[in-house]
């Protein structure tokens, strides 16, 4: 016989704890968090550069389908860090590479050239984002080409 569902108030202190007197006003807490984040900007940018190099190394080694999840996870980290530090074009290029890697993973295939183009775009945008819209347009064109039958081999 099926066990009946139980719905009951969950015990827990968190709601009470955050209501205690004291603490920080929202604006101040967020400003302090942002300040701490800003202090880590230089190491974060260095980390992004390192992650892009890792992606470049993986792409240069003729990746197999088994390498795609690792590349995607690395790309996820680039996106998260870039978006956190306002590097929007870099984050967008990262999302495009992630979409490509997800599509390749689903098909269990690899398209080395398309991956390499995206990694080059990440390198470009990681250094200088002045031509960002043009670079992103070009990546969009690569993706449209792949969608329209330029299927990865």
């Amino acid at each position, binding site marked *: 016989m*099926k*066990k*009946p*569902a*139980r*719905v*009951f*108030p*969950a*015990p*827990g*202190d*968190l*709601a009470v*704890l*955050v*209501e*205690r*007197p*004291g*603490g*920080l*006003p*929202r604006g101040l*807490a*967020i400003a*302090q*968090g*942002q*300040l*701490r*984040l800003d*202090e*880590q900007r230089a*190491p*974060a940018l260095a*980390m992004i550069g390192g992650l892009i190099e890792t992606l470049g190394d993986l792409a240069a080694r003729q990746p197999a389908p088994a390498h795609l999840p690792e590349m*995607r*996870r690395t*790309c*996820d*980290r680039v*996106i*998260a*860090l870039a*978006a*956190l530090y306002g590097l929007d074009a870099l*984050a967008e290029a*990262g*999302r495009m590479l*992630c979409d490509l*890697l*997800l599509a390749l993973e689903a098909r269990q295939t690899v398209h080395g050239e398309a991956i390499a183009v995206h990694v080059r775009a990440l390198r470009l945008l990681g250094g200088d984002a002045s031509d960002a819209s043009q670079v992103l347009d070009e990546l969009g064109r690569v993706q449209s080409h792949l969608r329209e039958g330029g299927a990865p081999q």
Partner: protein
Amino acid sequence: MTRDRMNLKGVRTLLVDADAFGASLMTQMLHGLGLDNLEIASSGSEAQKHVEAGAHDLCLCDADLPDMPAPALVQWVRHLPTQARFLPMLVLTGYSDFRNVTAFRDAGAHLVMKKPASPQALYDRIAWVARPPRAFVECESYIGPDRRFRSVGPPGGVPRRATDLSSEIGVATEPNLSQDEIDSLMRPMRIVT
């Protein structure tokens, strides 16, 4: 939900993140927000040890764990025989992991948040998780916070019972009640005769 003020001092928080740099950034941000009682686990199994060893008020868990899928960790917590199974869990996903949002939800996570976890987003999500506790549901297929936020009527194919309220409530004919008016309806008052 935004909250004007929160006291996060002493809130026992478990941060699960395999990425050392990501964990250090998160730690910095959380300290900035006022959260000073932080334990860090770098894998799912390490997180399990922390949960078994001590009580926590909040868990922030990265979706990408090296040794187990994050939904498995959430599910493990929910099946504990101790009070730890009620631990509020906020899962942080990367761009590509967010497509698995239903897996985290079905495992019993309180909230799934897509990175980047900016200080503002983190503050507001923690405030949301820290609302007065949501009801908890325990049934064969699910253990976790009640996911129902609105009444959507009976599921497809289930007929309405005679005692169910009508789904036709018509168009509002008067403006909504203000919060004060609602409060006054709830407040018990002595009737003076």
